[in-house]
């Protein structure tokens, strides 16, 4: 596994906003099938990495390859079609649609949106959407309008829409932020179960170290635009430097 070609490979990424270096020579490989957590202080550039890998920000230097092909310079839409999905820190749902319709639209986006006459909720897509929502534990609120959900359900629905596109790589920006503490582990367990069953590779930005320890195969520590440490959670989180510089800041922030 370790000598196989990585799914996503970033080399020498540099991007500065004004004087702030969000990425200052980032080298990072994402292996097939792994769950990679990115941790680090606020403003370190973790979300910037997701934005660069999905085509929303263009690094000033460096390259990113996905499945061996360079993807820098492709439009976000083209990158989605190649199989990189993402979810958002602030869930991006169609607020006036039902949860079911949100899921069905994501399915339609993959299967063919350009059909002007047959209904979106045709039996096969409705079943597929229902099945998807079921896996995320959202079946009970399928007919609710998306703007009536609580934050935890919105986060899950947002991720479900990304999963509906059947990406081979899923990038998640703080999947548990803003969620009540009691709900947090429930969300994490749902995610681990669903994502493991699909075999998707996942990268997620996270602040909660309990979530990271529970979820991640590897952890990358992003600090001042560089990868300060990379390895299994038990190893990285035990590192005194990481504990002082990253976890200390993160937990007291």
């Amino acid at each position: 596994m370790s000598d196989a070609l990585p799914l996503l490979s970033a080399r020498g990424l540099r991007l500065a906003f004004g004087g702030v270096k969000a990425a200052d020579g980032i080298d990072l490989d994402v292996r097939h099938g792994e769950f990679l957590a990115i941790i680090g202080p606020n403003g370190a550039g973790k979300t910037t990495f997701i934005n660069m890998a999905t085509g929303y920000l263009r690094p000033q230097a460096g390259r990113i390859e996905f499945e061996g092909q360079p993807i820098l310079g492709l439009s976000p839409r083209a990158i989605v079609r190649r199989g990189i999905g993402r979810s958002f820190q602030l869930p991006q749902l169609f607020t006036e649609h039902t949860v079911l319709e949100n899921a069905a639209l994501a399915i339609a986006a993959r299967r063919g949106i350009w059909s002007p006459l047959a209904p979106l909720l045709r039996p096969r897509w409705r079943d597929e959407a229902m099945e998807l929502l079921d896996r995320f534990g959202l079946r009970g609120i399928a007919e609710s309008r998306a703007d009536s959900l609580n934050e935890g359900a919105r986060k899950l629905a947002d991720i479900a829409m990304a999963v509906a596109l059947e990406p081979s790589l899923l990038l998640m920006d703080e999947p548990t932020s803003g969620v009540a503490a009691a709900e947090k582990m429930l969300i994490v367990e749902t995610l681990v179960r669903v994502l493991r069953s699909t075999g998707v590779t996942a990268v997620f930005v996270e602040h909660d170290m309990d979530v990271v320890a529970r979820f991640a195969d590897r952890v990358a520590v992003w600090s001042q635009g560089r990868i300060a440490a990379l390895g299994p959670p038990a190893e990285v989180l035990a590192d005194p430097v990481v504990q002082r510089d990253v976890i200390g800041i993160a937990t007291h922030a």
Partner: protein
Amino acid sequence: MADWFAENGLLLGLALLDGLAYAALVFMVAVGLNLVFGVLRIVNVAHGSLFAIGAYTAASIGIFFASRGLPPWMSYVALVLAAVAVGAVLGPLIEKLLLRRIYGHEDVLQLLVTFALFMILEDVQKLIWGVQPISQDTPLRFLGTVDVPFGEDVIPFTAYQLFVLPGVAVATLLALAWFLRRTLTGRVIVAVTTDKEAATAMGIDAARIMLLTFTFGAGLAALGGALASPTTALVPGVGAQTIVLSFAVVATAGLGQIEGAALTSLLIGLGRSIAVYFAPEFEVVVPYLIMVAVLLVRPQGLFGVIETRRV
């Protein structure tokens, strides 16, 4: 080329002078539209109607003054009086009765509400002033004409259009820039424009600022109309034309740009008046051609800044 100038030079000179005067009027309306949008986040479709009502009111007051035998210089007082009256009456009325109900609503709803207001004001204007052309050009005649040297020729042009209109526009631009940047109220307005929530959190009475800004913007539109009234016969339909034209200026310049709006007014004013003299069929088309051409190349407008996308 030389032949063309020999034949059309005078016409071109006239077009430039006319364009300058016209640009001054367009600027007065566009800058108010822009300011109101910046603070209220509503593009007021009825803004052009305030211009039209300002023009009619100025003409009516001017005619009334003349009928009382007041001296001709009083017609200038009529212009200012009209602008103040329209701004002070219609401004608060519209803001308090209508706009206040729809702040923060869907964009499409805000558009429809100001569009409905536009339909109403167009007919209010027709009911009060009728559909027959109204002229009141005392301010224009009072100052007489000036011989403007142009190459070897001279062009006689009214002093009112040559000095008063551009003068008021430049004064408005300077006063506004000074007001927004140097005075407390001005800075508060800018603060509300930039971040209403933060401004409110700092204890700024945003509702009052919005009322003030709308009233002031309405007054500017009315002043533009009042200043325009001596130069043309007033007929229905001027409101629709004005709003589309001033919107063209604002869209071409980029929303929120005051100095940019001045330059763009000049561009569109000159473009239109050159069309008036050389291709009258396309008079109405030219401003939009300029707007479309600019927006094709720079969707955010000539001077606009792309709003950073928040994900």
